[in-house]
């Protein structure tokens, strides 16, 4: 029988099927962070349970951490308390913990792949909706709630109904200045913020085959922004080359054995999907969002659509534009901005910093722009320095900060002030996401860089030479 990649991985992790209920679904790898795990440990302890497979859980501090002076004690007592709780819970239950200052520390969805914890064919969960990132390796990876974090800690399983299957094919060659982020924002704009609810997505076609692992992670990361539980891409030579030799990948004979399995992880000819969509690479421009959900995106040179031209509620649409202080028909190019944020689990990897630097090199940050450049991990910082990008950044008037989730969700001090407009490479433009009253335009690192040096929303193609 012809199976999809998703079926192959899902079905091999079902411990049992509950009649007219969910599957008992086995979890190979579990990431935890300081925000969504403390209550799970409390629940575990109040029931008198223990962590059944501590070696399958990995803790890293990221959501709440400062991005300057990480060597100093964390000033906010509530944040410090959560970071302590993570460290103590990990120590008590024998779980690996990469706290603040650890050389392996960084955003959970950056450090997992970097350290070879993320593997093809694995099931991976975390109390964070962007866990879908790990699907770039052909894993089934998705976000869970805190009750489920407790389930994984105490049983290594969750109870999960099997999602429906969707395939999204993007074919052709991407134009100059068009990045994986733009591909994702384009797909989400087509699907809307809820179009893939109930589905797990496989991305296929030469656009994804040609994409780097970093780019694939960006695309899979954003799957949740169209409502999909996750997204995945079949592993290939690029995947295996990325993984080989990483700290925690299988070695020697174990690697060969793993490879034998991984090479079976693709969708068979003739396998069926519940929904399928085809898009052309040549239709995709550098993208930008103009509203308060990631589905409200368009080519950067376009104008904000009229409410009547769209599906969905006119009132909700106008409320959204009202929050942004934008009007139907507005052009985005040329709008004056206040902030630029480069970073997050979406765009905080080395390739994103290379892209940003390709534009700011030899230029200067605009005076009206405050820029926060936040690498996804210490390993990304090291790579930035090794490639001399830190000098490019400094020469252009920018400052490189320390790793963490930062202004993506503004749990730490990196908050965009009320009313200010930010071009952000992160994943959500919800009301107040980057700080109460903040206004977010989601875009690629290239659009962020072009806007950072111009002071206004800018099409990066006007600054790139072919």
């Amino acid at each position, binding site marked *: 029988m012809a199976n999809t990649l998703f079926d192959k991985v899902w079905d091999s992790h079902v*411990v*049992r099927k*509950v*009649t*007219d*209920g*969910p599957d*008992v679904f*086995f979890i*190979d790898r579990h990431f935890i962070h300081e*925000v*969504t795990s*403390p*209550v799970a440990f409390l629940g575990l302890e109040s029931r008198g*349970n223990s962590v059944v497979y501590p070696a399958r859980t990995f803790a890293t501090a990221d*959501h*709440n951490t400062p991005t300057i002076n990480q060597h100093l004690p964390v000033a906010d007592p*509530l*944040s410090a308390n*959560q970071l302590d709780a993570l460290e103590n819970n990990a120590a008590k239950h024998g779980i690996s913990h990469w706290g603040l200052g650890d050389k392996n520390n960084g955003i959970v969805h950056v450090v997992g792949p970097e350290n070879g914890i993320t*593997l093809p064919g694995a099931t991976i969960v975390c*109390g964070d*909706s962007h*866990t879908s990132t790990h699907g770039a390796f052909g894993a089934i990876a998705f*976000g*869970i*709630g*805190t*009750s*489920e974090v407790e*389930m994984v800690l105490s*049983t*290594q*399983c969750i*109870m999960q*109904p099997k*999602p429906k299957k969707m395939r999204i094919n993007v074919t052709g060659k991407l134009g100059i200045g068009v990045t994986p982020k733009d591909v994702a924002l384009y797909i989400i704009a087509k699907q809307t*913020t*809820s179009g893939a*609810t109930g589905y797990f997505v496989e991305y296929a076609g030469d656009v994804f085959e040609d994409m780097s692992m970093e780019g694939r992670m960006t695309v899979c990361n954003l799957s*949740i922004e169209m*409502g999909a*539980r996750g997204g995945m891409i079949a592993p290939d030579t690029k995947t295996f080359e990325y993984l080989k030799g990483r700290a925690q990948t299988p070695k020697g004979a174990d690697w060969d054995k*793993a490879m034998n399995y991984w090479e079976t992880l693709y969708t068979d000819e003739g396998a069926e999907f519940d929904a399928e969509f085809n898009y052309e690479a040549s239709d995709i421009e550098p993208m930008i969002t103009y509203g308060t*959900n990631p589905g409200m995106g368009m080519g950067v040179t376009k104008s904000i659509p009229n409410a009547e031209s769209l599906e969905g*509620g006119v*009132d*909700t649409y106008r*409320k959204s534009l009202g929050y942004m202080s934008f009007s139907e028909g507005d052009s985005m190019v040329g709008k004056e901005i206040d902030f630029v944020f480069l970073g997050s689990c979406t765009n905080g990897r080395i390739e994103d910093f290379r892209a940003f630097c390709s534009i700011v090199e030899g230029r200067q940050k605009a005076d009206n722009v405050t820029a926060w450049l936040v690498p996804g991990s210490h390993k990304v910082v090291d790579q930035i320095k090794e490639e001399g990008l830190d000098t490019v950044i400094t020469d252009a008037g920018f400052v490189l900060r320390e790793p963490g989730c930062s202004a993506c*969700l*503004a*749990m730490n001090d990196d908050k965009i002030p*009320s009313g200010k407009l930010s071009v952000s490479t992160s994943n*959500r433009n*919800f*009301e*107040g*996401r980057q700080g*109460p*009253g903040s206004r977010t335009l989601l875009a690629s690192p290239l659009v962020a860089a072009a806007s950072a040096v111009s002071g206004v929303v800018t099409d990066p193609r006007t600054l790139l030479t072919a």
Partner: protein
Amino acid sequence: MAYDKFQVLTSSAYPLPTENVDTDQIIPARFLKATERVDFDINFFRDWRYNQDGTPKVDFPLNKEIYAGSKILVGGRNFGSGSSREHAAWSVYDFGLRCVISSAFADIFKGNCLNVGVLPVQVSPEFADTLFAAIMADPTTEIKVDLPNQTVTLLATGEFESFEINSYKKENMLNGFDDIDYLKNIENEISAFAEKRPF
């Protein structure tokens, strides 16, 4: 975290017809710093309920006295999108709500609700409109959510619709059981499975 049993609930309802309400609105990230599950009602819809100076926004439905004490919220399409934070479901529960009705839910929020004892009831867009209209016409109008029979009824007119829930989750809600109770009971089966995993 075992919770109260859910059988039949009859209550007035808060109307919130805005679509795509995301979990950052239900509870903003800056209020996720607790290490215990207490008092999440305080910051439920914080930035929609309060001005930046802390004064209540009087027009927001959750602040209107006429709806106070309702145990049901009727929300717009795609309710609960975005972040996986279970704090959103906790804040719904802590605010005193036991049921959210919408024409569509985001997956993770829906699952989180079921895990904390809040019943997500998905109805047709037309029936959602009927409920919104009835609440607008009479803020005290009562809605009956009958889990054993899987029906939701507008009591004033008798209009009703059936809703879906799988029988496993239904039993859990009716009895106040949760998934950990189930999983711990099949521990041996899980450990036998774990031993066969290649990595």
